[in-house]
C-alpha cells in the first residue's frame, strides 16, 4: 500500500487537483481570478513535490513502471503545465468554463503520466487515449470561433485514425507474440514479417502524435485554430510525453529490431526536419510558423533518439526540458500580443522592439534558443542531440541535421528581423504585461540562458536511471 502511494505520487497529486476542481465546480464555484491563482499555487506545489521521494518500482503486476528518470520526465511536464497556467493568465481570466478547462488539461496530463510509466500495451493504449481526447475538447474551447471547432474536429479525426492504426498494430503484435507486456514481447521478437508489420503500424501511430512527416498534416491547422494555451500544451507537453514513451518503446520493447528502426528513424528524421523547415519558411501566422518549427524540432529529437544508447535518452530529456522553456516563451509572447491586440501575423510584429522591448527580447531569446544559437540553452540541447546521433559515425546524417539548423536559423531570424529592424507605421502599441505573465516570461528567459551553462543539470539527468 505504501509503495502504491510513493510510486504513483505524481498521478495521485494530479488526480487530487482534478477532484478538487470538480468539487469547486459542483459546489459554489469561484471567480475566475481566485480559481486561477489557486490552480497556479497547486501546480507549483505539485511541481516542487515532484522532486522528492522518487523511487524505482512497478505496480499492478508490471503494468506500471517508474524510475527517478521517469519521475523527472513527469516533472518536466508538470513544469510546463505550471508555466502555461501562468503565461495564458489573460485568456484564462476571460474564458467561460475555467474549471472544466483545467480538469481537461490535467486529465490529459494524467494520461501522459500513465503513458510514460506504462509497461504494458493495454495501459499504454488506454493512457494514450486519455492523453488525447481531452486535448481535442480543449482545442474547441474558443467556442465562438469557427476555426477553433474546425481545429478540434481535425484533431479528433486524426487522433481516431491514429489510434485505429495503433490498435491494429497492437493486435498484430499480440497475435504474433501472445502477450501484451513490454518485456515479454521483447523476449519474443524474432523479426518475422507479422512483427515488422505490427512495428510499422505502432511507429505510424507515434508519428501521428509527434507530427513526424508524412503524418504531420493535422498539426498546423489544429495549432492555428486552438486557443494559445492549448497550442502551447500540444506543442510542448504532448510532444514531450510522446517522445519519452517513444524512446521507451524503441529502446526497450523493440530493442531486438534496432537495425531496422535505426534506418527508419534516419529517414523519418531527415524528412521531418526538411519538411518542417521548408514549410516554416513561408508561414505568416505566428502559430502556424511555430507549428512547423515544432515539427522541425521533432526531427532533431529523432536524430537524438536514433543513437540507441543512454546518451540518446539523456539528450532527448535535456532537449525537451530546454524546449519547454524556449517554446513556451515564444508562445507566451505570442499569447500576450494576440490577447491584447488580436494580431497573430509576423508582419504585425514589425517594429515591436520600439514599443515593447521586453517582449521582443524574450521572443528573440526564445527563437535563438529554438535555432540553437549560443549562449542560449538550445545550442547545448541541439548539439547533444547531434552528438548522440553521431555515435554511429553517420557523419552525413549529422551534416544534414546541421544544414537544417541553417535553414531554421533563416526563418527564426525573419521574426527577429521584423521585430528589431523593419519599420512600421503603426506597430503594436505598448502593452502593459500582467505581472504574473511577466514573471513566467522571466522564468522562461532565465531558463533559456541558464540551463545550458549550468552543466550539472545535464549531469543530473545523466545520473538518473
Amino acid at each position, binding site marked *: 500500500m505504501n509503495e502504491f502511494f510513493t510510486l504513483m505520487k505524481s498521478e495521485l497529486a494530479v488526480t487530487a487537483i482534478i477532484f478538487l476542481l470538480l468539487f469547486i465546480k459542483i459546489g459554489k464555484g469561484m471567480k475566475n481570478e481566485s480559481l486561477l491563482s489557486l490552480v497556479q499555487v497547486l501546480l507549483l506545489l505539485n511541481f516542487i513535490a515532484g522532486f522528492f521521494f522518487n523511487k524505482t518500482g512497478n505496480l499492478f503486476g508490471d503494468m506500471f513502471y517508474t524510475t527517478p528518470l521517469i519521475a523527472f520526465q513527469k516533472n518536466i511536464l508538470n513544469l510546463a503545465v505550471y508555466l502555461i497556467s501562468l503565461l495564458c493568465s489573460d485568456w484564462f481570466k476571460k474564458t467561460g468554463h475555467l474549471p472544466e478547462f483545467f480538469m481537461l488539461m490535467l486529465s490529459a496530463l494524467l494520461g501522459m503520466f500513465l503513458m510514460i510509466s506504462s509497461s504494458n500495451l493495454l495501459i499504454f493504449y488506454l493512457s494514450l487515449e486519455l492523453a488525447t481526447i481531452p486535448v481535442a475538447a480543449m482545442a474547441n474551447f474558443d467556442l465562438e470561433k469557427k476555426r477553433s471547432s474546425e481545429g478540434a474536429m481535425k484533431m479528433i479525426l486524426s487522433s481516431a485514425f491514429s489510434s485505429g492504426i495503433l490498435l491494429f498494430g497492437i493486435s498484430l503484435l499480440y497475435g504474433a507474440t501472445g502477450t501484451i507486456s513490454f518485456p515479454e514481447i521483447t523476449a519474443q521478437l524474432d523479426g518475422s514479417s507479422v512483427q515488422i508489420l505490427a512495428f510499422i503500424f505502432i511507429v505510424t501511430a507515434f508519428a501521428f502524435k509527434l507530427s513526424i512527416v508524412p503524418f504531420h498534416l493535422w498539426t498546423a491547422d489544429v495549432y492555428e485554430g486552438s486557443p494559445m494555451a492549448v497550442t502551447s500544451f500540444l506543442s510542448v507537453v504532448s510532444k514531450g510525453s510522446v517522445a519519452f514513451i517513444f524512446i521507451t518503446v524503441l529502446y526497450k520493447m523493440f530493442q531486438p529490431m534496432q537495425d531496422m528502426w535505426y534506418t527508419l528513424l534516419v529517414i523519418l528524421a531527415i524528412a521531418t526536419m526538411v519538411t518542417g523547415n521548408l514549410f516554416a519558411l513561408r508561414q505568416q501566422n505566428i502559430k502556424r510558423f511555430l507549428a512547423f518549427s515544432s515539427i522541425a524540432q521533432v526531427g532533431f529529437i529523432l536524430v537524438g533518439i536514433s543513437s540507441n544508447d543512454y546518451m540518446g535518452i539523456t539528450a532527448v530529456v535535456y532537449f525537451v526540458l530546454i524546449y519547454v522553456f524556449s517554446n513556451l516563451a515564444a508562445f507566451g509572447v505570442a499569447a500576450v500580443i494576440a490577447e491584447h491586440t488580436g494580431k497573430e501575423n509576423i508582419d504585425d510584429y514589425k517594429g515591436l522592439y520600439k514599443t515593447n522591448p521586453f517582449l521582443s527580447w524574450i521572443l528573440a531569446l526564445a527563437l535563438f534558443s529554438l535555432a540553437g544559437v549560443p549562449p542560449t540553452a538550445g545550442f547545448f540541447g541541439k548539439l547533444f542531440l547531434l552528438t548522440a546521433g*553521431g555515435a554511429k559515425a553517420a557523419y552525413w546524417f549529422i551534416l544534414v541535421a*546541421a544544414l537544417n539548423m541553417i535553414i531554421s*536559423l533563416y526563418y527564426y531570424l525573419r521574426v527577429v*528581423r521584423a521585430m528589431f529592424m*523593419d519599420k512600421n507605421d503603426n506597430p503594436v502599441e505598448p502593452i502593459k504585461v500582467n505581472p504574473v505573465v511577466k514573471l513566467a516570461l522571466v522564468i522562461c528567459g532565465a531558463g533559456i540562458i541558464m540551463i545550458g551553462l549550468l552543466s550539472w543539470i545535464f549531469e543530473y539527468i545523466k545520473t538518473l536511471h
Partner: protein
Amino acid sequence: MNLLLLIGAPLLTAVAVLFSRNKQQVKWISLLGSIIQVILAFVLLFAFRQERAENNTAQMLFEQNYKLFDSLNINFHFGVDGISVAMILLTSLVVIAGALVSWNIEKMTKEFYFLLLLLGLGAYGFFISLDLFILFFFLEISVIPKYLLIGIWGSGKKEYSANKLALMLMGGSALILVGMLGLYFTAGHSFDILALSKTDIPVNIQNLLFPLLFVGFGVFTALFPLHTWVPDGHSSAPTAGSMFLAGISMKLGGYGCLRVATYLLPEGAKEYANIIIILSAIAILYGAFATMMQKDLKYINAYSSVSHVGFSLLGIGMLTQTAITGALMQMVSHGLMTALFFAVIGMVYDRTHTRMVGEMGGLMKVMPFISTVFFIVGLCSLGLPGFSGFVAEMTVFMGSWENADAFHRIATIAAAMSIVVTAVYILRATGQTMMGPIKTESHLQLKDAAWNEKLAAIILVAGILAIGIAPGWLNDLLRPAAEEIMNRIAGK
C-alpha cells in the same frame, strides 16, 4: 595570470552596460571596460614573455581546466601560446578603437555597446579555449551580435547583408560541427585540443574531416569562393561593426584553420595543401582586381580584405614554419590595418555623407589628421616597409619560397604580383579622395577628427608601427608556436 579575467572583464562590462541608465554612462562604462581589456592583454603579454624568459617551455601557459559536462568529457580548458597572446592583443586594441569610434551612436546606444562587448567576449573566449566544444561555443556566440549590428545599425541593403552573413557563417559552423564530432568520436571521446594533438588519427579519417573543418573555418576568413559575405557584410555594417568583422571575426576563422584543422589533422593538411594554395592565390589576385573596380570606399577595403586575408591562408597552405609565422603575422597586421581603414572610412563618411571615391577630393586640406591616417593605412595596405603589412607579407613570401618546386614558386609569384595591383587601387583611392581640389562646396566646412577618433586612430597606428618597425617581439611570440605546429605536421 588567470585567463578567466579575459572573459570576465567583457562580461561584467556588458552586464554593467545593460543596467546603466543613460547614454553617457553606457559609453564611459564601455570605454572603461575596453581599457581594462587592453591592460589585461598587455599584462598577459608581459607575463607570457616572463614565463618564456624563465625557460618555461610548456606548449600552453596559464592552463586552467574546469569540468563542465563531465560525462561527455567537455571541459572549460583554457591556455595560451604565443598565437593566442598575439590574437588577444589584437582583439583588445580593436575593441577599444571600436568603442571609441562609436562614441556618437545615437540609435539604441545601450544595445549597440552591449552587442559590441559580446562580440569581443566571443573572440577572447575563442582564442583561449583549448577545448573544441568551448571553442565552437565562443565562435558561435559572435554570429548573432554581428547579425544584429549589421541589421539594426547598418546602412544600404543591410537586411540582405545581415542575412547573408549570418547564414553563411552558420553554414561554416555546420561544417565545423560535423568535423568536430568526427574528431570526438575517432579520438576516443575527447574535445581537448592538446589531447587530440597527441592521438594518431587514421589518414582516411583525416582526409575526410580536414575539408570539413578547414572550409568551415574558411568561411569565417573569406576562403575563396566562400568570401561573398565579406563585401556585403562589411559595407553594410556600421563603422565599429566593420572594424570588428574584419579586425577580429575574420581572424577567428584563420586561427581555427590553423589551430584546429591543420594542427590536429596534419595528414589531411598535406593532402589538401595544394588546393588551399590555389584557392588562396585566386583569392589574392581576384580580390585585388575586384578592388580596382570598386568606387565605394567600404567595398574597396572589403575586397582588399579578401585579397589580404588570402595571404594568411596562402601561408598556411605552404606548410613551412616561416610561412605559417608569416600567416599569423598577416592576421595580426591585417586586423589592425583593416580596423583602422574602416575607422577612417567611417570618419570620412560621417562628415561627407558619401563613400563614393568620385564625390570626394582634397580632403587633406580640411581634415589633415584623418587624411594622414588614411595615407598611413593605405601605405600599410600596399606593403610599404616600416609598416606591419610589409613585414607580414614578406615573411609569407620568404616562407613560401622555401618550397622549391615549380607549383609553389608559381603560386608565390602570382600572389606577389597582386602587390602591384594593390598599389594601383590604394594610390588611386587616396589620391582621388585626399589630394587635388575640393570637389564639393560643403566639404570646405568639414571638421577634423574629434578626440575619440584621434585616440582610436593613434592606438591602431601605434600597433601597426610597433610591428612594422620592430617585428622582433611578434616574431618571438609566434615562431615557437608555429614550430610546434610544424613539428606535428612533420610527424615529430
